[in-house]
């Protein structure tokens, strides 16, 4: 039973990491209806930029805002150069544009900073927390706990930002209805630029945590693929959905790998989340918290 809980908690905590990536997708989808496939590349780009800057002698607290600025500029540039000319195109076209964008970002990142694998140390080791191991006999990684804490902080910040600030309210209005938002005088394009900038910031957080865990390397772009089942499980346009979906996917993936994997030959974490999300969608086609679409003629 202890083992079960250990796996479960480990899964939940790694699910938080998935949620972090999924959050970036949700923010952009909510505000502009774009399924931004380049989010994974943005995570990679952020982590690589951060590591590159620290290698050039900047310390942590200088590199962090510098990278944040880079990500914000990147977000604004993307909005200007890619999305604005493609306004009102079908969603699939925008989706393809973001795939092209992901190639572009990956190329730029590696061109500027090189393609070698780097480590990233955030000062917290990936080792079990002594106190919990002693009292409950369950190993919980310090690093995972910190990641969960950061994620909680990020979500709280976003929640406050969305609910309490003027820009946040404008963002929600745009998410609800583009035309109505325009009609009451919300500058749509400005809002989109802000959303992309915020998504860039979220990518930075995700990039730091994922980079510290797996090393900063090209494989970091594949975390996007980990976030997609989370996204459809929770619903494309729901921030709580991204969190809850991440927890469900993380926990069930680890449990399945441990209890089901040995019977079928292992390596199932590549597809299990997708099949799980797929089965889930059969019951709720818009995900857990996704907006119900009423279809009329």
């Amino acid at each position, binding site marked *: 039973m202890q083992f079960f809980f250990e796996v479960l908690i480990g899964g939940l905590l790694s699910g938080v990491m998935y949620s972090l990536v999924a959050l970036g997708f949700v923010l952009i989808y909510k505000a502009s209806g774009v399924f931004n496939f380049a989010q994974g590349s943005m995570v990679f780009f952020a982590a690589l930029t951060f590591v590159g800057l620290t290698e050039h002698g900047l310390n942590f607290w200088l590199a962090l805002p510098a990278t944040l600025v880079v990500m914000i500029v990147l977000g604004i540039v993307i909005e200007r150069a890619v999305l604005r000319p493609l306004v009102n*195109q079908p969603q*699939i076209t925008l*989706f393809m544009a973001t*795939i092209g964008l992901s190639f572009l970002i990956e*190329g730029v990142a590696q061109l500027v900073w090189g393609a070698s694998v780097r480590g990233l140390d955030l000062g917290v080791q990936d080792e079990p927390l002594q106190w919990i191991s002693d009292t409950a006999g369950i190993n919980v990684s310090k690093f995972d706990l910190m990641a969960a804490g950061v994620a909680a902080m990020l979500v709280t910040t976003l929640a406050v930002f969305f609910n309490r600030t003027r820009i946040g309210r404008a963002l929600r209005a745009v998410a609800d209805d583009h035309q109505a938002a325009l009609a009451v005088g919300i500058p749509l394009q400005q809002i989109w630029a802000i959303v992309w900038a915020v998504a860039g910031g979220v990518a930075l957080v995700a990039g730091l945590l994922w980079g510290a865990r797996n090393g900063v390397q090209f494989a970091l772009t594949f975390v996007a693929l980990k976030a*997609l089942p989370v996204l459809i499980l929770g619903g494309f346009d729901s921030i709580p959905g991204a969190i809850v979906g991440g927890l469900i996917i993380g926990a069930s993936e680890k449990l399945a790998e441990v209890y089901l994997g040995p019977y079928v*030959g292992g390596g199932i974490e590549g597809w299990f989340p997708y099949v799980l999300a797929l089965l889930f969608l059969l019951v709720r086609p818009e995900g857990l918290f996704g907006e119900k679409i009423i279809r009329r003629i």
Partner: protein
Amino acid sequence: MFYREAGQFKTTYQADAAIFPIRQDRIAMAVILAVAFVVIPFTASPYLFSAILIPFLILALAALGLNILTGYAGQLSLGSAAFMAVGAFASYNFVLRIPGIPLLVAFVGGGLSAAAVGILFGLPSLRIRGFYLAVATLAAQFFILWCLTKIGWFTNYSSSGVITAQSMVIFGYTFATPQAKYLLVLAIVSVMALAAKNMTRSNVGRQWMAVRDMDVAAEVIGIRLMRAKLLAFAVSSFYCGVAGALFAYAYLGTVEPEAYNLDLSFRILFMIIIGGVGTVLGAFLGSAFITLLPIFLSTAVTFLDETLHFSIASSVASNLELMIFGGLIIFFLIVEPHGLARLWQIAKEKLRLWPFPH
């Protein structure tokens, strides 16, 4: 002046519903086919066959399959490479386990197996729409490849998971040279493209387009959604399956399941977007573009390197290629979101008036 339908009167319904109603189109098509079947086999070099023409045709076939599903029936799929893998491995097993089975029958069998798997993974489309469906089709992509890797029976218990396609023998003739392979692929692709074109012009195709444009409305006017959608998945997967089998037999020779990874799925999706969603011509134009672009870029790099002595480190070059590829895709989407096929359409409109503006 030359491209103009003036004076071509249609006196029967048959003539009116013909696949190429304008004489110039018929002539152009005949010329293209003649060049493809007669001129190219005698003139092209083996490199041109095996590095450019064969993959171009095979991927065009796969793009055609995806275009039926995404372009005509409106169901976005990211799992086309997995259906190609099903076709390839099923064909391999048909040839392996049924002695004396004709190769073409094995290809059809591979296509039908892919169609069956396609229907299975198409079932969720009855409830799920849009990007939810697209992500759900990724389940097919990962699950199928995992099955092919993990279940040894599919690869005949090869220790490395790699299969070697049997030699292609049809009616006692072995298709071994690049020329012969090219002609075989070309013949299959031509027949299937014709079939696709006719399917999309018929009742089935109109049903698909109705479903694409608005499925609720289509249902109201009496189209059976389930049949139309699942048929689209089946036909699309059949095309992908045959393309996958050809990919293994005529192009790669030795294949592992990883050859049909997500990258290939994306490449096929790029082809239909760049070529033009919902056109048969677009599948070919897109495939040509996506196949030629990397070759063109690497040639450009070697050209710079050798003639201008402007050497680029190979890591830089590969990143530059990646960037240019991504950038060009964005550029094309911005300049012509409806794809190359639309450019051709516009060119035809212009040609009708050329050289007189009125």
